[in-house]
């Protein structure tokens, strides 16, 4: 009998009763309780590693359209690796979730098995960190958030070079030049090396509820000032109905809060680092950005300070918020069939001005201040992999034109390849409302090509962006410390970050 059936018959209670009535031995009791524990653990895995926050937006993946020459190549090249199992761990981002459903096609062609561990972002970082520290090769492929690119750059194989070095394993028509240039620069290039291949591009754009804006006679905000006025007006008018002007991802200690803060600073003419490589978030522009963010929190659902991107997505899908400058990847889900506000969300260019952006010459560590914060990621071949060639075949397949286009069709997120935008299957869905819509992609592409911002590249950034900065910001936004004083909070962060940079001998 399966565990599920046992469970239905109150397995645990029966077992405990049987033991107390001495019908089963202690050994049997422990073994059965262990079985129950495994069942619960499986539940936990499901809960913790689910496809959040983009659940409900997955349309069926389009039909397999792999070119014949590519299929033939995979069959031939995969022969010598049949039976090999390759592993990689990733966050539940849309491309990963879609890829997980498509990977059987790769296995069918090559005989190579693929195990994808889907876990929360913090755990992806933890697993990758452990793997590179011990040079274990547990994972053949790393999922790398853009904030970690420099941290892991020495642990990966440059795919461009590998493509040249291994002509017998080079996929025909792979075409590196087809990848969006700003994405390559912003996500996976470090020190003149491709650390991985671009895989995902969540990027900040403006999203708004057209019904609410029309109801209150508000024009689509173009600047931060417009946005502030609109958010305040809607909160004042709709708060009693449970609707707020905007919503934030301000969970203390979480990277999501750091992302919100970064955009607020850039949007007010500030930067994270100055040209002298000192933290500059505590200058006048930086403090103004944080004060603006504090004001936005006053116009957000209270749960914003306990929410990551998951919570922010929920706010949008449940109709709690009217405006949001956040990840464009939310859009298909907010318009999906199970959204309470299906078809009411629209997308516009990210907010610009009235402040000027800080120039790239005035900032440090390769930071790119701009209007659209990107949180992209790449997938990279581990230098410590014991199955590097098999993993390389998978990597090429996963980032090939057809698979990337199909990922976009299924998940609705922005493609990495220029050719995907003009693919007839993508173009055809531009008028669709609901799962698999592509009507937002023109705005996303414009943002990527014109106003994409990137966080600084320094090897300790993963730690600083995930620990020191969001922890101190969390103290401020939840009133744990600083008594609401943005400048005091920024000064403390400056002290901590500068000490870290100095300790790492980067200055």
């Amino acid at each position, binding site marked *: 009998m399966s565990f599920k059936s046992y469970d239905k018959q109150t397995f*645990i*209670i029966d077992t*405990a*009763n049987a*033991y*107390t*009535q001495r019908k089963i031995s202690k050994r049997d009791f422990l073994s059965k*309780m262990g079985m*129950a*524990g495994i069942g*619960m*653990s499986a*539940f*936990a895995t499901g*809960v*913790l590693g689910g496809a959040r926050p983009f659940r409900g937006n997955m349309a069926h993946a389009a039909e397999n359209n792999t070119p014949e020459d590519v299929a033939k190549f995979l069959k031939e090249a995969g022969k010598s690796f049949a039976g090999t199992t390759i592993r990689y761990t990733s966050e539940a981002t849309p491309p990963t979730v879609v890829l997980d459903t498509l990977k059987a096609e790769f296995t069918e062609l090559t005989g190579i098995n693929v195990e994808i561990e889907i876990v929360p972002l*913090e755990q992806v*970082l*933890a697993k990758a*960190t452990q793997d590179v*520290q011990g040079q274990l090769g547990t994972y053949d492929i790393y999922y790398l958030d853009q904030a970690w690119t420099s*941290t892991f750059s020495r642990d990966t194989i440059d795919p461009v070079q590998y493509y040249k070095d291994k002509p017998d394993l080079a996929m025909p028509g792979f075409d590196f030049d087809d990848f969006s240039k700003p994405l390559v620069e912003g996500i996976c290039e470090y020190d003149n090396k491709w650390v991985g291949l671009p895989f995902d591009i969540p990027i900040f754009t403006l999203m708004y509820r057209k019904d609410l804006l029309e109801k209150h006679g508000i024009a689509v905000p173009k600047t931060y000032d417009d946005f502030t006025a609109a958010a305040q007006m809607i909160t004042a008018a709709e708060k009693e109905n449970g609707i707020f002007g905007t919503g934030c991802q301000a*969970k*203390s*200690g*979480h990277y999501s809060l750091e992302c919100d803060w970064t955009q607020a600073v850039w949007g007010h003419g500030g930067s994270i680092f100055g040209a002298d490589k000192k933290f500059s978030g505590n200058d006048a522009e930086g403090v103004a950005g944080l004060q603006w963010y504090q004001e936005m929190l006053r116009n957000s*659902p*209270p*749960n914003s*300070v*306990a929410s990551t991107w998951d*919570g922010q997505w*929920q*706010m949008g899908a*449940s109709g*709690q918020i009217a405006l949001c400058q956040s990840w464009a990847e939310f859009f298909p889900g907010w318009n999906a069939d199970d959204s309470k506000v299906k078809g009411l969300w629209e997308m516009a260019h990210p907010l610009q001005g009235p402040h000027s952006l800080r120039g790239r010459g005035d900032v440090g560590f390769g930071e790119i201040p701009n209007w659209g914060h990107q949180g992209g990621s790449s997938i990279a071949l581990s230098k410590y992999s014991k199955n590097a060639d098999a993993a390389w075949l998978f990597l090429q397949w996963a980032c090939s034109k057809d698979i990337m286009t199909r990922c976009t069709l299924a998940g609705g997120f922005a493609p990495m390849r220029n050719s995907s935008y003009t693919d007839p299957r993508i173009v055809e869905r531009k008028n669709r409302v609901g799962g698999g819509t592509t009507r937002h992609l023109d705005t996303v592409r414009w943002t990527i090509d014109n106003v994409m911002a990137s966080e600084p590249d*320094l*090897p*300790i950034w*993963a*730690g*600083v962006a*995930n*620990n020191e900065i969001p*922890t*101190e910001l*969390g*103290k401020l*936004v*939840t*009133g*744990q*410390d600083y008594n609401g004083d943005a400048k005091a909070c920024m000064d403390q962060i400056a002290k901590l970050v500068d000490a870290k940079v100095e*300790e*790492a*001998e*980067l200055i």
Partner: protein
Amino acid sequence: MRDPDSRAGNKLIRLPRWLTSEHPFPWLFPASAMLIVFGLYPVLYSLWLSMFKRNPATRIETFRPSWNWSKVFADDRVIDAVSVTLTYTFIALTIQLVLGLGIALLLDSDRKGFGLLRSLMILPLVVPPAVTGMMFLLMYDGSFGVISHMLYGLGLLSPSTPILAGGTSALWGVIIADVWQWTPFMVLIMLAGLRALPKDPFEAAAIDGATDMQAFFRLTLPMMSKIIALAVLIRGIDLFRIYDYIKVMTDSGPGTATETLTAYAGTIYFKNADFPYASTVALFTLILVVIIANLFIKIFKVRF
């Protein structure tokens, strides 16, 4: 165990004496090996690691024995974490002890149905702590959490202050999850102790006209003192190294309001990749646990 004079084929094989069943070695070896591999080696390795200064940028580690230890005592977050850990341990332990003993007294009966109740009590124990954390996280959610809505309805909580976003309320939120899961453990220990108490003193007290309260304070509690001390010691050590609930529910926040020592060590390890410093904080935690546990054993004269 083979006999020392056992035969293989026609040859007589004589095992060395230390491999025979008369010698303690074969009996002690498996447990000792386990202890060395899973207990001693990690501690010694952590100690070794703690003597290095790591540059997270270059990943170069240089031998600086005092570097991390100086850092521990100068780190405000360590001091805060000690305070949070002690507060968390004290509050959770007190609640679990009082509830555990109270429930055990209620369940200490041979009447029909009590066996089932005792079985039901252990249900929370089979749920992995991470799942418990997740469950409570959802129930506390300010937008759709059942506990939050109940508290809003009763006027005990304002919708403008989500449970896990306030420093004090977040700590209480995590403690409640811990209490839900681990009070049954206390109940089981107390129940075992209560069931093992001799009946004669209670019968004599009843003949002498002692009330239930007098019997509890003058007989039950003194006779249970060793069991209680043991339970406090076991749960106290466990609570001191709390990690799962904090990680899942608050990730040490808001700010550092729920950051315990182990949670901070985890943050340094997994987020900052400063393995030597994380090891030092973990060792510091171990030292604190050993000191506090031994003080407890000495003060309360716990004998095993």
